[in-house]
């Protein structure tokens, strides 16, 4: 204990652990970062990360905290400028563990080209936190005239998902529950701001309005269903999804079948759902597929005028069912 007290130990943690990890040592030590924004409007977001375990196949809580906040900015079409990082450490957390997570965070930020520019650390007593909690805030710039948002979705829109769904949630469950699925499913955690930039560029480069991309949402907690239902509710449109078109990898389908979970409700951390004007969906889809994080992109359904706010899925048998968000976490079934 002592690292959160604001004294010499705190300074050491910042000097020796965080600054090297985030690649910003040597600058003046200040209470806030100052950023140049250029033209456009500011996008601001914050998210807290409490995932357990801290390390899981393909990622850590650290890179998740970087990518997740970048993706929240990307959903408004913003180009991310910088992140902040707040750490709440439970007394007894090993410095090596914290170091590895900070390094992973630094690498994720460097890969994304979005620096962590300021931060904060607090230590709480044993039992006051679950090892480590991270909060990241992100700031970005939305170009003038761009108005992507859930309220912009309209009947006729094609609904695109950027690739395989369910991988992050299954990766977490496989370690949390100690279940061996035979193969390792790794998290899909990835920053999506470049994917969104490519989607918008596919329109502007042809002299088209980037606002033909109507709505974007990263289907994190609650999965694909929550993302689509929330957009449908906000915009007051109905949605019809085609069950056969939704990319569910076999490993995810098996794991979910085994646990009695619905892959459509399992979390993703590197996927984007887009509602796009049908006249431009082919161009946007091609742009998504040209990038590695969108290589598996597919049109999975469309927005309709009927049943506003409700999402209906068409099964391979030609029948339909309503899909709805879970109340809380999905509960594994008894049998």
């Amino acid at each position, binding site marked *: 204990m002592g690292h959160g007290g604001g004294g010499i130990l705190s300074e050491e943690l910042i000097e020796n652990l965080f600054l090297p990890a985030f690649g910003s040592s040597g600058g003046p030590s200040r209470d806030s970062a100052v950023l140049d924004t250029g033209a456009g409007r500011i996008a601001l977001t914050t998210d807290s990360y409490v995932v357990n375990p801290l390390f899981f196949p393909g990622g850590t809580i650290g890179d998740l905290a970087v990518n997740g906040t970048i993706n929240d900015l990307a959903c408004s079409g913003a180009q991310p400028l910088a992140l902040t990082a707040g750490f709440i450490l439970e007394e007894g957390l090993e410095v090596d563990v914290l170091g590895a997570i900070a390094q992973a965070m630094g690498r994720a930020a460097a890969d994304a080209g979005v620096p962590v520019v300021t931060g904060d650390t607090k230590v709480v007593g044993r039992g006051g936190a679950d090892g480590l909690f991270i909060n990241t805030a992100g700031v970005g710039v939305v170009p003038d005239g761009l108005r992507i948002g859930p309220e912009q979705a309209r009947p006729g829109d094609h609904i695109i998902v950027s690739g395989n769904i369910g991988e992050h949630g299954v990766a977490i469950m496989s370690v949390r*529950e100690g*279940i061996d699925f035979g193969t390792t499913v790794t998290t899909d955690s990835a920053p999506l701001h470049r994917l969104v930039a490519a989607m918008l560029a596919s329109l502007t480069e042809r002299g088209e309005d980037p606002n033909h991309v109507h709505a974007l949402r990263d289907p994190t907690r609650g999965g694909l269903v929550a993302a689509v239902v929330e957009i449908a509710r906000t915009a007051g449109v109905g949605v019809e999804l085609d069950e056969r078109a939704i990319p569910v990898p*076999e490993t995810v*389908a*098996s794991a979910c*079948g085994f*646990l*009695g979970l619905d892959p459509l409700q399992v979390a993703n951390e590197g996927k984007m759902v887009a509602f796009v004007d049908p006249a431009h969906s082919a161009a946007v889809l091609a742009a998504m597929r040209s990038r590695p994080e969108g290589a598996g992109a597919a049109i999975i359904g469309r927005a309709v005028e009927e*049943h506003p706010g*409700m999402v*209906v899925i068409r*099964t*391979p*048998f*030609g*029948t*339909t*069912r*309503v*899909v*709805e968000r879970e*109340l809380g976490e999905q*509960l*594994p*079934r*008894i*049998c």
Partner: protein
Amino acid sequence: MKYLDEFRDPVAAKALVEQIRRTATQPWTIMEVCGGQTHSIIRNGIDQLLEGAVEFIHGPGCPVCVTPLEMIDRALEIAGREDVIFCSFGDMLRVPGSREDLFSVRARGGDVRVVYSPLDATRIAADNPDKQVVFFGVGFETTAPANAMSVLHAQRLGLTNFSMLVSHVLVPPAMTAILSSPTNRVQGFLAAGHVCTVMGTSEYGPLVEKFGVPIVVTGFEPLDLLEGVRQVVELLEAGTPELRNAYPRAVTAGGNVVAREALADVFAVTDRPWRGIGMIPQSGWTLSPRYADFDAELTFGVGQLTVQESDLCHAGEVLQGLLKPNECPAFGNACTPRTPLGATMVSSEGACAAYYQFRRLSAGAAAPTSAAAGV
């Protein structure tokens, strides 16, 4: 996925649907016994495919749904104790007791854990010798072998801090109760495939004989269900009630002999109240006296706790096939997954929850009418 995709083939499904429709000269009323079958029927819209030819009545085979209220209250009582780690399958946590659910106990600081196997609970007991570890042993014949195994395992390990709150129920007595009811509408059964994987099929022949109904052991994938229905309809049209096995890749006549031996050793048949239905004689399992040391009801002295069901909840009629979920006055208004009056609205296998989740587009329109008529 191999062994699954073959049973989800839309072309083969279409052929089966057409065959059933050609065979059926009148609408037949068929009960699928198991909640897993109900879930699959509604999720895949099998009921929509067969509309007019077959009416499904959703049976009582959802373990969460039929676990009696007093048993939930006993679980809550035990789980609230400071010296207890209470382990349960996930979908029991949201089932309302007479005042609250296990989630509320956990929120107040109770140590309530979701496990995937009862053997996880024995491991937790071995790791926490200063705590009493209690596993909530619910379910039909399907979950019973693993639960029996955990008791045997605990005995082998010499664990004195492990016990089980047992609320096991049995399928054949419930089918007997349904068929004996003067209001019974069921003309044929899809028997629960995985129950028969454990127990075999011998218990069902006497039901066919006594009540003259066809019973076809059926699996859970769309083609399994359609094949089961096809055979029931064929038998109904021919007027020749028989016991058949349409799930031979998982079910043999003798069942799982090792599992049955463990069950016969660990459990003893007992009278058991079913939530919404009432007492059914000889319809459940309790721990046999040999294993009384592992009986949480005795350890914690909660056996006498009894309570009353809500008057608003018609889950009993739903479970007996007398009422469709959306015909219940409370469906979708007083009773939703957020505020469930009965367990059938809680479990994803429960008929009410399945209707609420998947059928509101068609069922939703009917709900307000029923509500207006009923309230």
